[in-house]
């Protein structure tokens, strides 16, 4: 049989036939509904956006060298921060390399666009798109170590085992793509993000909603290729027979895990074709490659991942997350403000801006939310290691948003003269989550899953607010 005939709707029909003919016990109804989970259409109210691309700068980018312009820091460089700011505060590396002397920004800032947003000279390309994005300078998180803070940004909790935002959203909306996972993770930088795969885990949601990492080299996915001496047709026959037998077992046992596995095999089979197609960007025009700053289309890079993110969204993938590592500029030998921060900025500046521009040109930006940010920001005070850097800071840091009904050309929230805390419009991570879900047509308080007698939500138990000021 032609593989194309086994679309998910064919699978649903098949399932329905089996269940209705065999299912005297009534065990299959739940399994049936999970197999038939309609893509989309489960929103709580009309959605402004359908897709999310989260550009995650792992390590905590320094807002003070990028978006939060603080001339006062330059003026008072080297002087201790007033006690009133730091009293009772806790920091990572408290009292070791942590210091209380203010550190002026390492780079100059200029105003750009009609919005007049201040952006540092490290970011010439992002400077050019300030009128397309909403810059939020007063993001606020709760945890100041990398893995817990990354978990918090992704799952709304510092504990292992909670569903990540991508999992929640794919769970809430389903996938619009039946030959690629609904939630895809791409990575660049010298290593994986601290915290690892729990950052894209599904927690107490079914495992089918967890993020799938795509490799940048070789087979995009390990074991993607059929064994050399197995023909396409035979691979299909094997997958069909596995499904038939698994379906019979599902009906016998009523175990939902089997329906997940049936879906997994269908997806795996389709991925064998679609993933290599996706990763092959040789068909992209030279002007597109130039826009992103991709020199060699085969070479893995953040820029290439940005282009892949666009291709994924084009194919209906719900949630794409890019991790770029080594943004932890304490002033250590491999992560300092003088040499490495400008390098990291160069790595992401052009491609991040290009992604927004490219999506806009293709009419995809309206229903795609692009998020840029890390797990926290960095202190206005210098930290002394091999060179002077900045420590982790959770009270005020910058993220930006584009598309998906977010306002364009706004700078939201104001920090104090040192950029230490918010003096206007603090935006907690849970508020960001609530806002993102809102744009996708999901009410954060209703998107919940019951586990152990408790209703778990991305936004936790404390009240979270949709930041309507950010929305157009």
């Amino acid at each position: 049989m032609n593989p194309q005939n086994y679309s998910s709707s064919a699978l649903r029909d098949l399932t329905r036939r089996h269940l209705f003919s065999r299912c005297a016990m009534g065990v299959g109804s739940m399994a049936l509904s999970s197999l038939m989970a309609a893509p989309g259409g489960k929103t709580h109210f009309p959605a402004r956006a359908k897709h999310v691309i989260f550009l995650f700068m792992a390590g905590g980018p320094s807002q003070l060298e990028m978006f939060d312009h603080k001339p006062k820091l330059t003026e008072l460089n080297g002087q201790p921060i007033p006690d009133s700011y730091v009293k009772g505060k806790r920091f990572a590396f408290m009292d070791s390399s942590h210091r209380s002397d203010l550190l002026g920004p390492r780079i100059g800032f200029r105003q750009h666009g009609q919005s007049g947003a201040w952006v540092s000279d490290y970011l010439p390309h992002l400077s050019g798109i300030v009128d397309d994005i909403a810059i939020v300078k007063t993001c606020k998180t709760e945890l100041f170590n990398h893995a817990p803070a990354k978990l918090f940004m992704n799952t709304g909790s510092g504990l292992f085992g909670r569903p990540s935002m991508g999992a929640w959203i794919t769970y809430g909306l389903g996938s619009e793509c039946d030959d690629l996972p609904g939630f895809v993770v791409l990575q660049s930088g010298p290593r994986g993000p601290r915290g690892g795969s729990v950052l894209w885990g599904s927690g107490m949601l079914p495992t089918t909603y967890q993020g799938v990492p795509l490799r940048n080299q070789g087979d995009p996915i390990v074991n993607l290729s059929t064994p050399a001496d197995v023909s396409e047709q035979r691979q299909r026959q094997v997958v069909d027979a596995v499904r038939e037998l698994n379906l019979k077992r599902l009906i016998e046992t009523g175990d939902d895990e089997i329906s997940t596995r049936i879906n997994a095999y269908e997806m795996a089979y389709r991925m064998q074709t679609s993933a290599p197609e996706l990763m092959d960007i040789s068909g992209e025009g030279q002007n597109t490659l130039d826009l992103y700053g991709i020199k060699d289309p085969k070479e893995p890079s953040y820029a290439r991942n940005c282009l892949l993110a666009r291709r994924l969204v084009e194919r209906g993938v719900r949630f794409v997350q890019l991790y770029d590592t080594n943004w932890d500029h304490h002033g250590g030998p491999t992560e300092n403000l003088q040499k490495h921060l400008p390098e990291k900025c160069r790595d992401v500046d052009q491609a991040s801006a290009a992604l927004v521009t490219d999506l806009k040109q293709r009419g995809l930006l309206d229903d795609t939310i692009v998020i840029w940010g890390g797990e926290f920001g960095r202190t206005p005070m210098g930290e002394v290691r091999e060179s002077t850097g900045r420590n982790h800071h959770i009270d005020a840091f910058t993220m930006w948003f584009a598309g998906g009904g977010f306002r364009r050309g706004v700078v939201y929230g104001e920090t104090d003269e040192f950029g230490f805390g918010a003096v206007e419009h603090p935006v907690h991570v849970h508020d960001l989550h609530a806002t993102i879900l809102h744009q996708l047509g999901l009410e954060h308080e209703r998107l919940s899953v019951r586990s152990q007698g408790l209703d778990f939500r991305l936004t936790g138990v404390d009240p979270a607010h949709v930041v309507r000021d950010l929305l157009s």
Partner: protein
Amino acid sequence: MSFLRLLSCFLFAISAASAGIPFNRDVRPILAENCFACHGFDKKGRKADLRLDTRNGALAVIRPGKPQDSELLARVVTTDEEELMPPKKSGKQLTAEQKETLRKWIEEGAGYEKHWAFEPPAAALIPGRAEEHPIDAFIRNRLTSEGLAASPEADPATLIRRVSLDLTGLPPGTAEVDAFLRERQKDPEKAYRDLVDRLLGSAHYGERWGRWWLDQARYADSNGYSIDAPRQIWKFRDWVIGALNSGMTFDQFTVEQLAGDLLPGATESQKIATGFHRNTQINQEGGIDKEQFRIDSVFDRVATTGTVWLGLTVGCAQCHDHKFDPIEQREYYQLFAFLNSQDEPTLKVFDASVDVSGLSEELKELQQKLAARMQEQAEELAAWEADLTPASRKTMPAATLKILEIAPGKRTFAQSRALFAASIGAVGVFRELNDRYAEVDTVLNGGVTTMILKEAAVPRKTHVLIKGDFTRPAEEVNPGTPAVLHPFSAPSQRRANRLDLAKWIMSPENPITARVIVNRIWQQYFGRGLVETENDFGMQGTAPTHPELLDWLAVSFREGGWNVKELHRLIVTSATYRKSSVQRPELREKDPGNYLLARQQRLRLDAEIVRDVALTASGLISSKIGGPPVYPPIPDGVMGQGQVKRTWQVSKGEDRYRRGLYTFVYRASPPPSLTVFDAPDGFSSCTRRTRSNTPLQALTLLNDAAFYECAKALSQLIQREGLETAFRRCTSRNPSDAELAVLSPLAAADAARVLLNLDETVTRE
């Protein structure tokens, strides 16, 4: 006995009804969630000098019996935002129901209870009929109260596959299934018990449960961090397997791993056991502060000890007093002090057949004889050297020429020996002595090494580290244990050491360890512990679903002499364990998570066992136990991902087909076919594996070279023995006609792949 049971049941019902609001169940969660962050254990974080985590503290704002006079209640019900607790800005808010609970609780006297896990387990009387298995009695008791009926026993083929996989990690062979079915005809109960006996006696039992322990020991075969060089510590892995197979009691198992080197007359095996705490990462990057990473490894040891044996998140008190559990930062460093005073050598380990002391003695004698001989013939050698011509030199190996450049008086023993052997000693007595010397030397230097702990000759001092920062030592502390647990009696004549810690952990007064271990074993059989948060029995953890059962098991385990195999036997012989795992509509409705255990649970097999099942079904598996880790085929490009590219020379012969737990694991680039099925990363202790279910697993089973090789072997079996046998090798049961109808049209090669890819094949039903 049955009367007592009934009575206890009755008393339990009475006490539950008369005690009013149970503090631990209803009140503590309200206080913990809303109040403890500012009015709890952490004195630095405490506001208004008020603590509500103790009754004494709370009496400042509570008048027992008089809710109307209690400020606590006034502050939570007030409409004045200035006065309201918890404050508005905390974002927390009590529900009307919670406020009423507090009111009633105060009215009833505001009684406090110690957190359940810190109270010693009480051997609850077993409810129900005397002839009933105790586990079943507890489980049925709860089911009855919830109006649910237990599922029937699983069918025999499912049962033998289940218990074989659970006890040995291997599926039963078709002959074993047939034998079991035959025996059941005579006496089903005896047949099952005999089966359990056989499985517990199998050497594969130690492999399956060894891997369970190795997860907790964060075992892997490399040093971790960015360099991730290979290490030798597999002797520890083999020690674990051997200890479990020998039926070592859990207290001995614990003592040897935490402090085997400190036991009087410590044996080699007991030293190897201390490898448990050498499974920490080692950072080999240039320019690091070694002390920083040594401290990090001790942090890991404290956290691991706390998690594995105490079921507590002790590590939370590394930087500050624990926010939720009564563990002070100072107490953390007292625990740290036990684990901060050892050297970290490697131990050379020889095969049992090697007479190490005899050979060492012989080597010494040989060395003396050779030295004497060389001295005697020194002049002769000098003459030989003098006669050397440029032409003769040209024929000599570079190593010899190098030695010749060294002045005769400055040559080492090894250099002189080599030179003699290449010249005037090439024949005769010197040759004989020298050959034997080389042989003995090779044997003695050829042993395997393994990483161990050794108590330092001079104890290392331990200080509280401010904020966990090793550069900021504060007050010095001595070894000690958290006051919330049972008392530790420090030795008077000497400094307390790891052995004292191990004995304290295994003390019968310890309220928590037996519960933690039985819970973690239970979890393997039902997919979830009686306490779901298997690594946190503290106040943030979940309460047990069956507290009386948990306590009964804990007390039985301890009182029974920590007999691990007996605990396994107890669980797998219960009817609860043997129930069918088939879902039922009323259970899906009332207990979708199967917390009440009206049925068994289908569980996807652990990563290594997914491999073991494929190898067994296809007949490829090697039954060899232990030995150095092996290198089965892995996908291309996997080893190139770390900072240092490692080679992966695929093993030959039977080592290509060893069980999954013997696969070499580089922490930084672990084998994908294990990782994809959720094998732990070895970076920190893993007390529960997740069970994911993904397209990547499908791709692995379909396309991975190792699984494909199994499929080819199974395909030959299909050709020789038929489809039905192959089906049984994978699932242990006979296929239905409908199933055969799906498989028969396929070529054998394809049918084999189908069988290895079935959900049922990789699942324990």
